């Protein structure tokens, strides 16, 4: 039987997901903290990591937000098989849920018009929340992922249209230089998201997908997976450390996502996710709603 998605349910889920994402850090990120702490040799860095871990516990105990930055809200919708969705109504419902979370919790609306800087105090604006819709035949129902993307890391985003003659070396140099330039501004330890290939816009989008991918999930492309292993090791030899105050733990990982590109092109983009690498997801099936990460 085909599952019909009710926009009212989507609205409630969108509201709930925004608040959950802001309060509960995914288990893979918590494990990432344990790994970085075990390997950290710098005393200041160990103290900084300890404060970050303490904050995760305080947020859960007080049911408060992990970070004050409510971010730019992003909803990634994946429509599975055997489901009927009214697309326009779905997008409108996500927007209403986002605004309700902001008013009802309440949350700081971090979203303004880019020219007037006017804040509608709804976390919504032109084109925001960002909504991506994709399709999958791997599950039945609808999956909604919510990412409140913090600005400290988002403000450190780069695109370089390198040329084929510069090869993979250009990609490696670029990533290392981005990590150096970001310093402490991105709230390290970060997940360094790297997009390789595609068009300019696809390349940047790949970097965002990479930055928000769960830790421990390798790039599906074997060449991309090998590159991210090399880069992960390399950036953690730089000594930028947590908060840019020095230490071993500069990045949880470097993640790479790839797409085919043009014979004349060699694009590389970097987008970072801060240590408060927040995300939440919900699966809507005929059995009901299941929340996760």
């Amino acid at each position, binding site marked *: 039987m085909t599952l019909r998605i009710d926009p009212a349910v989507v609205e409630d889920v969108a509201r709930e997901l925004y608040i959950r994402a802001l309060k509960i850090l995914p288990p893979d990120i918590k494990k990432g903290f344990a790994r970085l702490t075990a390997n950290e040799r710098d005393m*200041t860095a160990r103290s*900084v990591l300890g*404060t*970050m871990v*303490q*904050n995760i516990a*305080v*947020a859960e105990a*007080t049911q*408060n*937000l*992990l*970070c*004050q*930055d*409510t971010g730019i809200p992003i909803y990634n919708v994946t429509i599975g098989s055997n489901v009927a969705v009214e697309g326009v109504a779905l997008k409108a419902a996500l927007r209403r849920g986002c605004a309700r979370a902001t008013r009802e*919790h*309440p*949350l*700081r*609306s*971090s979203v303004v018009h880019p020219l007037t*800087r006017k*804040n509608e105090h709804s976390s919504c604006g032109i084109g925001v929340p960002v909504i991506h819709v994709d399709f999958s035949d791997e599950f039945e129902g609808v999956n909604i992922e919510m990412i409140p993307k*913090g*600005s*400290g890391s988002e*403000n450190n985003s780069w695109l370089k249209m390198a040329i084929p003659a510069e090869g993979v*070396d250009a990609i*490696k*140099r670029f990533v*290392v*230089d981005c990590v*150096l330039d970001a*310093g*402490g*501004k*991105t*709230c390290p330890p970060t997940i360094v998201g790297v997009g390789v290939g595609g068009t300019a816009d696809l390349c940047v989008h790949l970097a965002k997908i990479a930055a928000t991918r769960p830790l421990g999930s390798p790039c599906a492309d074997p060449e991309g997976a090998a590159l991210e292993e*090399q*880069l992960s*090791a*390399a*950036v953690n*030899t*730089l*000594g*930028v*450390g*947590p*908060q*840019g*105050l*020095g230490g071993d733990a500069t990045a949880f990982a470097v993640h790479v996502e790839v797409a085919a590109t043009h014979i004349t092109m060699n694009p590389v983009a970097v987008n970072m996710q*801060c*240590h*408060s690498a927040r995300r939440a997801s919900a699966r809507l099936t005929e059995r009901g709603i299941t929340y996760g990460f």
Partner: protein
Amino acid sequence: MAHYDITTPIGATDIRALHVDDTVTLNGTLFGIRDATHIALFDRGRSTRFALAGGAVIHTAPNVAKVAASAQHPTGYAPVCIGTTTSMRMERFTRPLLAQYDVRMVIGKGGLGADSLAAFTDLGGVYLAIVGGTAALETTWIEAIEDVDLDDLNPESLWQFRIRGFGPLLVAMDSHGQSLYARVDSAARDKRAAALAAMGVIS
């Protein structure tokens, strides 16, 4: 590496006792300020009724709840979650904050640059690093929102918080020309060539 418990306000002479790697726990009053607040004060000619002299500012825009005004919440705002934003966007405002308002301590994350370091040296000031992204913890150090000015800029209003046991914070830039960020950045750039060589890349 000494620890200081400081109750605001603090004088220009006393602030020079602080050195990089010292730690500070603050009590008293803390002012929340960020992008739009600085732009209003220094680019658009607005002013504040708050006395910032000898005080501490923190780069923040809080999550607040609107409540009935009371003794506990005199502004009609209750704190929900108060954290710290990336400081570097506020770089060009450090000197006027110290020169015009006699601010002595800037609290933020990620550090400030060479112009701010020079202002701290010339005018007497420090940058205190808080751990960014730890707002749930930071909120427990804030007793109340005592007052708010320039509130048409909300959430980037000028906030006055009453704080207790705010810290420990790390002195990351001092009035003697020392910056932990500059030190770490320089050391990291020295390691660039080796990091690239490990991946078979000639820098």
